[in-house]
């Protein structure tokens, strides 16, 4: 063996061959580029959004007037009388996002926890083998297909069979009740985010050391109590992380919601009782998708980027919350 080769291998063990260092630098540069990209995204979106926040101040987040009319005014380039071109009161849209996201996440949380327990503990092998691909399928269906089914198949059902004439007339001077409404948005959103939650929670439940469950069983605790007291409790951080991730998905869902939510910047009022569920809403992300044709118009663009900035901040906060939740899972030495 030539001396050079031996020398090279020694240096390799010390991790210092020129080519290797070059490779590390190259890959490291790529990693830094990813960071720069994220930073650039945050910065550019905020710069573009700033005029909208600046023109409206904190009342940007408040309510006032008809948000649809404000957006239409920007689209047509004719500011509302007495207001600047950037005038917007975005609360109805923010409310639309909140009121679709939270109930959908709560429904999905309940269903997915039960389904994950079923999948990991109770399901016979044959059922488990069907449920696995079913969950993957539900996760894979494109949002536009969910939206299409919602608007073409389910909305007419709601309009014709669920909404009563009395409910229609009770709010007819404020808003028209069509099938595309809050309830449909919540239900479809819940269906869309459930699979990912099931997958994450099931993974966490499966990684609970079986000795812990056996210990509980040995103490005479039945299987259900063992699951609730040992498995679910151990997996709690993962459940929180899954919920946070699903919340992010729900916040950002634009296409499906723009199809089924009714797309009216209406402050759906919980005090309306059941009728509340049939009222239309308009979430932030859906508004961006719908109004994207106006991105070439200055004030409209600033406003839409401001919506995006709000979503970006929420997404970043949720990412952080998910990370923080997972930290406590590491304490048990569980990877999920």
């Amino acid at each position, binding site marked *: 063996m030539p001396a050079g080769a031996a020398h090279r*291998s020694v240096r390799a063990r010390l991790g210092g061959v020129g080519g290797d260092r070059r490779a590390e630098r190259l890959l490291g540069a790529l990693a830094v580029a990813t960071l720069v990209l994220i930073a650039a995204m945050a910065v550019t979106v905020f710069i573009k959004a700033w005029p909208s926040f600046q023109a409206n101040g904190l009342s940007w987040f408040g309510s006032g007037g008809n948000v649809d009319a404000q957006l239409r005014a920007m689209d047509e380039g004719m500011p509302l009388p007495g207001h600047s071109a950037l005038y917007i009161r975005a609360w109805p849209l923010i409310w639309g996002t909140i009121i679709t996201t939270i109930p959908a996440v709560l429904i999905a949380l309940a269903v997915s926890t039960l389904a994950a327990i079923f999948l990991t503990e109770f399901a016979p092998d044959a059922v488990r083998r069907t449920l696995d691909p079913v969950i993957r399928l539900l996760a894979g269906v494109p949002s536009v297909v969910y939206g299409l089914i919602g608007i073409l198949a389910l909305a007419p059902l709601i309009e014709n069979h669920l909404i009563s004439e009395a409910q229609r007339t009770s709010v007819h001077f404020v808003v028209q009740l069509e099938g595309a409404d809050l309830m449909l948005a919540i239900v479809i959103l819940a269906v869309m985010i459930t699979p990912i939650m099931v997958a994450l929670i099931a993974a966490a439940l499966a990684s609970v050391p079986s000795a812990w469950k056996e210990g509980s069983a040995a103490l005479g605790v039945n299987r259900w109590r063992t699951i609730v007291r040992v498995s679910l409790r151990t997996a709690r951080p993962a459940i929180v992380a899954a919920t946070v991730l699903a919340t992010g998905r729900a916040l950002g869902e634009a296409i499906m919601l723009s199809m089924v939510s009714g797309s009216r910047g209406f402050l759906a009022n919980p005090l309306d009782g059941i009728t509340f569920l049939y009222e239309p809403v308009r979430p932030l992300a859906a508004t961006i998708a719908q109004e994207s044709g106006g991105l070439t118009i200055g004030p409209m663009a600033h406003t839409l980027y401001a919506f995006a900035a709000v979503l970006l901040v929420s997404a970043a906060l949720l990412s952080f919350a998910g990370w923080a939740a997972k930290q406590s899972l590491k304490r048990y030495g569980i990877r999920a």
Partner: protein
Amino acid sequence: MMAAEELAPAPAGLQVMRPGRESTASWPLIDRAGYWLCWAAGIALCLIALAIVVFMFVKGISYLRPNLLVQSPAPSIQENQAGGFFDPIVGTLILTAIGIVIAAPIGVALAAWLSEYGRPAGLARAVESAVEIIAGVPSVVLAIFGLLIFSQSFLGFLSENAADGAVTGQSFITAGAIMALLALPLIVGAAREGLTQVPDRMREASYALGKTRATTIRRVLLPAIRPNIAGGVVLGMGRIVGDTAIVIILLGLTATKTEPVGSVPVFNVLRGTGSTLTSYVYYNSPAGEGNAHEKAYAAAFVLLMIVLALNFAVTRITGGRKKANGGGRLLLRRLRPGWSK
């Protein structure tokens, strides 16, 4: 799932007292209610999936005509003259290809750097969370960020420009680049998972043979995690195929492919705007302008078939391995031919 399989026959002492599975009859009512709710949740998910698939099959079969697949969309008010969705299918393929071509190498490289180098540790942590943030950012936000970047004049060569020279930022290339961001976290995640599964002795053996880290990654680790990468890529393809927001913002809502005037034919298609199956469905749904429900159903059916096929591919790639991969043993078997070379 592993844990459940281990729990079912164990513990041995219990089995003597109560042969077979523990019966729920002895449980308090509330526990039994929980048990049945679990069954209900599982069955409900199956029923929803079944309903979606059956509904889309019925609609798809009744509206899908072979000529829809080969005709280009035509601007017409009459639904029977508005053509088919050949161009959207091609658009979906082009966009997926661009997205994956960009995302796969970057994703694998990021994963390799994170798992194998990861120095300085602070930078690695930051990159890790950056990838996680990308995964969490709504695609509609990614899309309008892309529009902001690609409508800068120095990037104008990537997209078709308006008559007055304004850069639109809309093209297959720009949409594909942002689509790559959508697939990136999935590929990074899959590749990293693979890399953590490769036992350390593989790396040590390679170093002992005098290989550098870079060579070890290229010759030992990457071949070992090929199924993981493939799984991540297919998952990423699923995301790209199914995304609508990026398409309607960065590719426009035109029904056909448009080519800007120029000389290089392939590059020009890529610089042009177009449509995909998702944007075609959106355009023809009541939310869009086309409003041709039967075509929307037919295109959605084709889209669902593509997604199902990708799903099946993921199961084949990753599921097959998981079954036989008791503690990475199969991985070892897979590696052995590479070692003898």
